[in-house]
């Protein structure tokens, strides 16, 4: 396919420049001016409409915490133990979840989808496209990251049952305990004298090969705890949600923390932070820490992502920052920027043609390509 006359926001330097984009075999092969259609090539004339990469959600539970989950299909949070390192979102993923449609409504074409927030270690994320011919064609990475939750959610879940963790001290101790075990297990294996097989430890030990760790932390002390643990064990990590990040910018800068900023829409920090508010949107313009955004769908439902991006703009965050936070930055933080997040030759043809400004309530997605296939 050849997309002609795009007003291209490629997230790699072009900002509204007129370009043509050639897509072949699911990939972007060429970007240029005045490209001629080949014989039998389908042409889509964008007629100057804005074209962006498909959005990337760096943290969601779509397909796992599925729509209408109250009575059945509560698949996001295994119960019984706060340490669930052996769980894989991959195995629960329901590709017909309406939540995935809701993601597409906002223009999301790739996402990390993972377990919920009830456990200290919830399991691993799957990285999927939000559309495709089959589940296997949708999956980019079967296991991309571990989910660690340092917020109140596990403390409420287990503390309420008179089990650990009830306190932040236990949050730290239990996660560190698992990581010490995993490190010893990893080292033993590397030295050729492996310990007896233990599923949880075997799985978790992959973090010492650089597998991404996503630490969910909202309040200032939990964010510091995340950084302390990550540095102690030399982990490849992001801090997610992190509404209190606004209060501790110097600390985050000093420690080179990458933040997957959670929603600022509707007091989403609950009792843990009063910083989850749109007033903070403009502060991100010159934040001293490195950040992208994520939905934590269903917390911020997929359908609300694009309207939320509009609200961020209304409250002063620069359009370029917003779009990058949901494309290239998210892809980089999630470790999938080799495939998605920008419109560049060699990358997956995940492309949105908008009827108008992508950051306007009233704009529609006139064309959505995922891996070069038209969706919807």
């Amino acid at each position, binding site marked *: 396919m050849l997309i002609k006359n795009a007003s291209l926001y490629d997230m790699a330097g072009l900002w509204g420049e007129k370009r043509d984009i050639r897509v072949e075999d699911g990939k972007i092969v060429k970007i240029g001016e005045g490209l001629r259609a080949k014989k039998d090539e389908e042409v889509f004339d964008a007629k100057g409409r804005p074209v962006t990469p498909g959005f990337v959600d760096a943290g969601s539970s779509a397909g796992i915490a599925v*729509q*209408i989950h109250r009575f059945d299909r509560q698949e996001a949070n295994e119960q019984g133990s706060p340490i669930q390192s052996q769980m894989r979102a991959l195995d629960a993923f329901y590709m017909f979840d309406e939540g995935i449609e809701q993601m597409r409504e906002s223009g999301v074409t790739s996402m990390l989808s993972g377990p919920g927030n009830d456990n200290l270690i919830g399991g691993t994320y799957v990285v999927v496209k939000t559309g495709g011919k089959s589940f296997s064609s949708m999956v980019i990475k079967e296991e991309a990251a571990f989910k660690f939750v340092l917020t109140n959610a596990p403390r409420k879940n287990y503390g309420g049952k008179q089990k650990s963790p009830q306190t932040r001290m236990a949050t730290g101790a239990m996660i560190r305990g698992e990581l010490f075990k995993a490190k010893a297990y990893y080292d033993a294996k590397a030295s050729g004298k492996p310990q007896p097989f233990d599923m949880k430890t075997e799985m978790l030990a992959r973090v010492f090969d650089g597998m991404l760790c996503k630490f969910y932390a909202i309040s200032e002390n939990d964010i510091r705890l995340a950084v302390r643990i990550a540095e102690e064990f030399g982990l490849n990590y992001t801090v997610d949600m992190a509404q209190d990040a606004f209060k501790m910018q110097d600390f985050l800068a000093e420690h080179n923390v990458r933040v997957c900023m959670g929603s600022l829409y509707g007091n989403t920090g609950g009792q843990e932070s009063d910083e989850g508010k749109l007033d903070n949107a403009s502060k991100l313009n010159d934040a001293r820490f490195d950040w992208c955004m994520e939905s934590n769908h269903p917390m911020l439902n997929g*359908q*609300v992502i694009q309207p939320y991006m509009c609200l961020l703009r209304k409250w002063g965050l620069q359009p370029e920052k917003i779009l990058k936070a949901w494309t290239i930055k998210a892809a980089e933080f999630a470790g999938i920027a080799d495939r998605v997040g920008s419109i560049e030759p060699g990358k997956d043809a995940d492309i949105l043609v908008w009827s108008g400004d992508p950051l306007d*309530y*009233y704009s529609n997605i006139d064309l959505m390509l995922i891996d070069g296939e038209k969706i919807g």
Partner: protein
Amino acid sequence: MILLKNCDLISMGPLGHGKYDVLIEGSKIKDIAPQIDAAGDVRLIDCEGKVVTPGLVEAHCHLGGMSDGGSHINEITGPIQLGLRACDAIDLDSDDFKRALRHGVTSMAVCPGSSNLIGGTYMTVKSAGDSRESRIIRAENGYKMALGENPKMNYSKRNQSPATRMGATALMREQFFKVKNYREKYLAHEAGEDNGWKYDFGLHSLMMIFDDTVTKIHAHSAEDILAAIRMAKEFGLKLSVEHCTAGWQIVDDLKEAGFRYIFGPSLGGKSKNELADKSLETPAIMEKAGLRFAITTDSGVIPMEGMLTQVAVHVKHGLSRPKAMKSITIDAAWCVDIDDRVGSVEVGKDADIVIWNMHPLETMAKAETVIVDGVVRLENGEVL
């Protein structure tokens, strides 16, 4: 006195949309005319280039009821809660109301939750004022009730009624029969008849459903909406159907019944079965059917800052702009019977006015100045 000059006024009243000056005296709107000259001790606010609307009205929310982390609006100890009052529980000093004010919302109905079949009475209140008490429009504006999943879920897991929709309506109708009998006996007693009437705290409170108050009944699914309508007809209730999620499936029934309808919240996900038929097209369908309705955030379900966003998304899905504006102003006020005071910019009404940088349904629209009861409560976007 405050004189708003050169308003691009979307009045939501008989004056429609036009260029006007608006004069405020005390807490009321004194005059609206193409040209009003300032005289005497008048504060002038030039609205040239701005859009002026009535303060927005939220017909169903829970502000101040959960803002401290607890829930003070669901007494889940029995499905029938008579005599409970939201006004005793709501923290009117909560930041929730300041947020509402910042987004141009000046009046709201604050309700008990939907965990019980009969949850208690809801209040109507302004988002700002000199004191908490002075902000109250009606401390008890009517009763809040609920059909559907929430009461069923709460009580069935305790092996109590209601475990079914039949159980829910039977329990509610039982109360309606009781209060009807109680009221007849009470009125006869008051008229001098010695009929052995005895004061009953709960039923005495519930009597207000027959006194021209709007009874709000939470109903998402079509069968729940129809059950609410059936009971309202049977007992002569002034009904407002809350949520109307599946309303698009039965618009003819809604039209025929002629009650008040409050749609929403709609923008976002579906957590439970009774939301399965949620659609962004519903308001457009309801408009086409000629229904008068409000659109609600049910805030905190959708935060106050999403009120206009939600309505804009409905406009994107076919709702007309004028109808969209009505659903969060005059028709919302009508749904809770406060349209004699608020919901439009008209002479004699409360001076609740928002000055916007542009049409409120535009993406970049912001409330710049908000006047509540004739007093500027927000200026340059900052709460005073």
